[in-house]
């Protein structure tokens, strides 16, 4: 597969899309981990939601 004289523009475009999508996925995954950790900590401190559910039941 030859990309011709503008190969750098094509490759940069695809790499950029890949990087931005990976950043989005990583950001959402890290945020999920942080929120579940904070919920578990609050749960461990004895706090419970009005519904009576605790952090272990949120998934």
């Amino acid at each position: 597969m030859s990309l011709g004289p503008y190969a750098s523009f094509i490759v940069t475009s695809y790499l950029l899309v890949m990087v931005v999508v990976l950043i989005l996925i990583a950001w959402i995954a890290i945020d999920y981990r942080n929120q579940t950790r904070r919920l578990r900590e609050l749960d461990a401190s004895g706090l419970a939601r009005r519904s009576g559910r605790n952090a272990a039941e949120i998934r």
Partner: protein
Amino acid sequence: MAWTDYRFDADQLSLRRNETKQATLPAATAATITDAMTLIDLANPTRFLTLTARLLPWLSALTAVLLLIGLYQSAVAPDDYQQGATVKIMFIHVPNAWLSMFVWGVMSLAALGTLVWRHPLADVAAKAAAPIGAAFTFLALVTGSLWGRPMWGTYWEWDARLTSVLILFLMYLGLIALWRAVEDPSRAARAAAILTLVGAINLPIIKFSVDWWNTLHQPASVIRIGGPTLDRAFLMPLLVMAVAFSLLFVTLHLAAMRNEILRRRVRALQLMQARQRPA
């Protein structure tokens, strides 16, 4: 009662509502109401989390498979007789451009849900979609610029299409800043919903800018009256990539909504903890 307490005890609220109605109505009517309430209950945050946990692995797998098929088809697609291999940029630029507008459309529907129906998940959906929409708009602008340099001889031109998409990107950033600036989620949600609906005026401007004004950007070649003008060799990879990116948005959006619900639960618990703490 705090706003967040009310919102996230929606499961208890709907349960109580069911019990009251069933006690005073005939059996057949009560059964009908129970069925209807079951559908409404699916939209409550706790049920939403359960549904999301089931859906996300399947959606992620399907998105990955479709992206791989789309990337393969893009790689083996023939060169265009005028553009050469740079036509391959179209397979990522166009889906991102479509999604930049589609996500704002989703946010506009969610804004209506916030302002008109006060749906518990509406502002969660809008807030979670904004950074994803901003990312797609950024990618549409940059890949378009990288496509424009070899084809038009310039990275940027202040024509109607490019400028209106840049305005869309700035509006996404403005919305994200607004949500971060206002601490109370319900106040932020109403302000953001109004701004989102005002910003929706930009969507038809973006779509029809290439028809209304003389622009460097080409007119529509896929979604147009009279059908697509693209050859099948280019249309198929483009459609596969468009479906793959749309599924990517749905997957990321559901995951981001789940995070936002958890964040609000954390906030509600922290407020409760602060109230319980002795002065």
